[in-house]
Structure formats: C-alpha cells, structure tokens
C-alpha cells in the first residue's frame, strides 16, 4: 500500500504547523521523518493517521482518501504507535497486545488472534513479560509491548502462512525513545523486516545514525516545511542538518559501515539559538 500526502497544511489558530508537505511512502520501504522538536513531525503523523481533522491537502492510502474511509476499515489497514500513553488500569502486557486485534474479532478472540498476539510478543521479545502488569514495566519495555500491539494489529485475518505478504501502513512516533541500544536496533530491524514483508513503514526518529542505518528514505523537516527528502545520502548532508537542527556535523564513512555516520563537529556545539 502506498500512502501519498499532497500539499498538507495544518494550523492551530493563527500558528501554522505544517506548511505544504508532499511525499509518497511506498510499500516495502521504511520512511524516516526527522527534524527538530516542534518541527511538525508528530502533527504530520497524526494527519496521516486520520486523527487530526481540519488539515488542507490530500492524504490517500492506495488512492483512497483517508477522510472517506470508515474508521473500522482504516483500523485493519493502518496501525499507529503514539508517543505517549496514559494507561491507569491494571492490564497485563498480553492484554495490551490483544487490543491490537480489536478490529479483527467481534466478541472474543479466535485461536488465530491468540497466535498472532503470541508471535508479535515473541518478535518484540516481550513474551516473558506477558503476565506482568503494563503499568509496572519500564519505559522501554512499555514501548516494546506497544510495538507488539501494532504488529498484531496489522496481521490480517486467516492467513495461516505467516510468510505471506502483509499489507498495511505502520506509523511509528518515536517508537524507540526509551529503549536501550540493543532494543533500539532490534526494533529498527523489526521495522525493516515488516517493510520487507510488505508493509509501508513511516517512523519518526531523533537518532540520525539509526535513521541512516535502517531507513530507505528520509524526510527532513524544519518549521513545518520539508528541508530535504529522498535517499539517505542526499538528505543527511552537513548543510541540511545545519538547516534543520542548527548544529554542525561531520559525515564519516568507514569500510565496515556502508551507511553514513554523523558526529557533531568538536568545539562547535554553539548553535543558532543556544549560546554557551
């Protein structure tokens, strides 16, 4: 499934947050969205998710305008992992992951639903936490559980063959912000694997190096506008990074690492806005 955004504008009151964003995310690819805090990344993702109304422009999944799609229909085709969760009830982790199956069963989950949940928990390595209470987990563990939930949501019904092509759009808003380094890489690998299985993955990231390593394409934003979009090496240049973040970086390349590695230029932490 392709998701196409055309000339997206969004404003709250007089403040305009998105100023004409255009892009296409293709099935089988991971699209990374990068940018400063407040650059409009989450707002853009919420528009794509269908949670924000009142934007102008057009967002379409497989040429279907998302505003015209029923939310039940949408729920089977796109899953969203938000940045913040506020859960006060004592749900077990497996319960949270089972919520992902909500669009797929009517009153009680089938055996297939339970298998999907189990597999998703195994894939995010939270199977050992299945009976623990969600609220008692650490931030990183909670993110893994939530990731398992959205994975479970996009497993379509009655495909007993798990290697079968998946279809759907997966929207991830800073999915790894609280994870340790191992699970950051594990989760990003998982995102790649899901894309390889056929999903369209869009992920907001802050770590430029992880983005360089795991994304196929990038969208670099600043102040509600797109600074640059396209291939990794085209986007992650010192000039673009300075425009978007106001920090000077150096791009390194080594033989072992086929992707660019970005490090801040020493003694040049001075940014546009922060004077030390």
């Amino acid at each position, binding site marked *: 499934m392709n998701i196409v955004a055309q000339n997206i504008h969004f404003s709250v009151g007089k403040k305009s947050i998105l100023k004409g964003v255009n892009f296409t995310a293709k099935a089988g690819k991971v699209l990374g969205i990068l940018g400063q805090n407040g650059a409009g990344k989450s707002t853009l993702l919420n528009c794509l*998710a*269908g*949670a924000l109304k009142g934007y102008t422009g057009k967002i379409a999944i497989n040429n279907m305008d998302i505003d015209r799609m029923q*939310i*039940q229909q*949408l*729920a*089977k085709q*796109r*899953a*969203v992992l*938000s940045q913040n*969760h*506020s*859960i*006060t*009830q*004592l*749900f*077990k982790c*497996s*319960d*949270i992951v*089972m*919520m*992902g199956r*909500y*669009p797929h069963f009517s*009153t*009680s*989950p089938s055996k297939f639903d339970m298998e999907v949940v189990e597999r998703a928990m195994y894939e995010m390595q939270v199977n050992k936490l299945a009976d623990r209470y969600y*609220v008692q987990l650490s931030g990183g563990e909670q993110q893994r559980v939530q990731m398992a939930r959205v994975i479970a*949501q996009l497993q379509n019904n009655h495909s007993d063959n798990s290697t079968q092509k998946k279809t759907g759009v997966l929207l991830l808003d800073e999915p790894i912000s609280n994870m340790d380094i191992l699970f950051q890489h594990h989760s990003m690998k998982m995102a790649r694997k899901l894309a390889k299985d056929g999903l369209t993955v869009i992920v907001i990231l802050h770590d430029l190096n992880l983005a360089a390593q795991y994304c196929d394409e990038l969208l670099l934003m600043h102040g509600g506008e797109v600074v640059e979009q396209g291939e990794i090496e085209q986007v992650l240049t010192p000039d673009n990074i300075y425009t978007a973040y106001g920090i000077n970086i150096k791009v390194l390349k080594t033989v072992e690492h086929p992707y660019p590695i970005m490090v801040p230029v020493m003694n040049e932490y001075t940014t546009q806005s922060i004077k030390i």
Partner: protein
Amino acid sequence: MLYQKSWYTILFFCLLIAVAVYSIGVGAVHITPTDIIKIFSQSLGFAYGADIDEGLKNIFLFIRLPRVVLGMLIGAGLAVSGVAMQGLFRNPLADPTLIGISAGASLSAVSVIVVFSSLPFYKALPEQYQYYFLNIVTFIGAALTSLLVFRMSRAKGITVLATLLLGGLAINAICRASVDLLTYIADDAQIRNATFWSMGSLNGATWVIVLSIVPFILIPVIVLPFLGKALNAFALGEKEAQFLGVNVKRLKLMVIVFATMAVGASVAVAGIIGFIGLIVPHIVRRISGENYTLLLVNSALFGATLLTLSDVLSRTIIAPAELPIGIITAFIGTPVFVFLLIQQKKQLKFSL
C-alpha cells in the same frame, strides 16, 4: 488473559440469590426460605404451601419483596454506571456520587417535586406516571451534570484526576446546598426530608416505585456490557481507541446516556447512595479481571448483592428504627476510596 471465559458470573449470581433470600427473611417477622417456596407454590396454584399464613404472605409480597427488588435494581444500576463512568474517564476513581452526578440528579428531582407537586396537571397524573416523569427529569439532570464534569476534567483527551475530583467536590457542594435549601423552604407534604436525599433510603418501597425504575435500570444493565469491548480499547487512550476502529464519539455519548439513566432513576426513588459505583467495580476487578464486558455483568450482580446486604444492615442495626443506607455504604466505601487514591499516587498517575 483479558478475554478469558469466567465462571465467576455464575458464582456472583448464586451469591445474589442467597443474599436476596436471606434479606427477605430478616425483619420483625421472620420469613424462612421454605415459606418463600410455599408462597410461590401457592400463588401458582399448587397444593404445596396452601397452609401459608395470609399475613406472612402479605408481608412477603408487599413489604419485603418490593424492597429487596428495589435494592437489587438500584445496586445493579449504581454499580454498572460506576463501571461505565470509570471506563469513560479512564480512571477507577470515577464514581457517580464522588464526581457529583448523583447530586445533580437529586437537585433535579427535588426541583421537580417542589415545582410540580403544586401544579394540578401533575397531581392528576397516576402515581406511576409521576414517577416516570421524575425519573426522566433526574436522568436529564444527571446527564447534564456528567457532561459538565466530563468537559471540566479533561485536557487533550486525558482526564486530569485533580480537576475531576475537585470539580466533583464543587458540583456536590452546590447541588447539595440547593437541595437543602429547597427542602428547607418546601412544606413536608411536598418533599421527603433532606436526610433522604443526602443519605438515601429504600424505605417505603412499593411495586409502583419498583416498576417505575425497571426500564431505567434494566436497559443500561443489558446494553452497557455490549460496549465492553470498545471500553477495553478505550482504556488504551482516546486516540488509540480511534486508531483501533472504535467510534469514540458514539461510545462516549452512549456511556453517558446509559450510565446517567441508571443513576438518575436510583436517585429519584432512593436518594443519594454513595460509593456503590466505587466499591463494587473495585472488588469485581480483583476477582474477575479488567475486561469491561465481564466487569459490567459481574458488577451488576455484585452491586445488587452489596446493596441488598447494606439494606439489611440499615434495617437491623438500630431496629426498629432505620439507619440511612448511605451511611453504611459510606463506611464501607471510604476505605476503598482512600486505598485506590494511595494506589494511584504510587503509580505516579496522580497528575494524569
């Protein structure tokens, strides 16, 4: 597992029947389970039980039974609306009494009685219709109050617990003061005393009263469990529920309508009986888990049980006088409330 099958519902049902039979028996005249069987048998025209005492039968049919049935209905209604409110506010501390919905209902009930009881057209209505009218008005009062609290307590789709409880405090204060004022200026014939409205009572239960609230209680008790699955998803967050395909707007509207319907009717006929919506779901959650479908069904059964038991206490502790039932539920409920408050503080969810 959330969607595990559970036999607890049967257990709760048996407990309710046992408590109901016990409760019918307790009083100045003792009625044994055998007597009850005899009365039913005789009423159905069987030979067994033909020797039953007419006086005993009348006490059973016109004093004890309506009172127990009323208690069960109100208990079930309050418990179910407590669960629904907790689902709506996504917080186990939301209770119709604490957040001011019962007080809003009582104010509308008292206003109706004071304003309408002097009007000739209202007086001409049969008693049954007067109660229906009263129930509808209290329903509207309760619904308006809950909308107010809901709007007040939420920011960006998240319930702010402090505003929820403090807002409830404010609404409770103003509504209760207004009720006290109205009962103070009204003459006794128009209105029951202020104690009735603030502490509740099942005293004076008749079949007319019971029948008048049956639809207002049974509809929510039957319909709300069907919203259980959506409420489960709603517990993840309002936005998340929408992403999972829940029609959030419709869900919220339905919860408010059905939950306040039950609260309104029970306040109209029995005054404010607090904490049932807090204690019952709390205990039921511990026993049969967090799945809202089961929670709603089991809470209805257990709420009926608990209120019936509380009523037995209210009738017997200082017999032959009666203690307002709200006092008893408050004594059981407050520790539960404090416990939940401390638990939430520990989870650092206090500010959410």
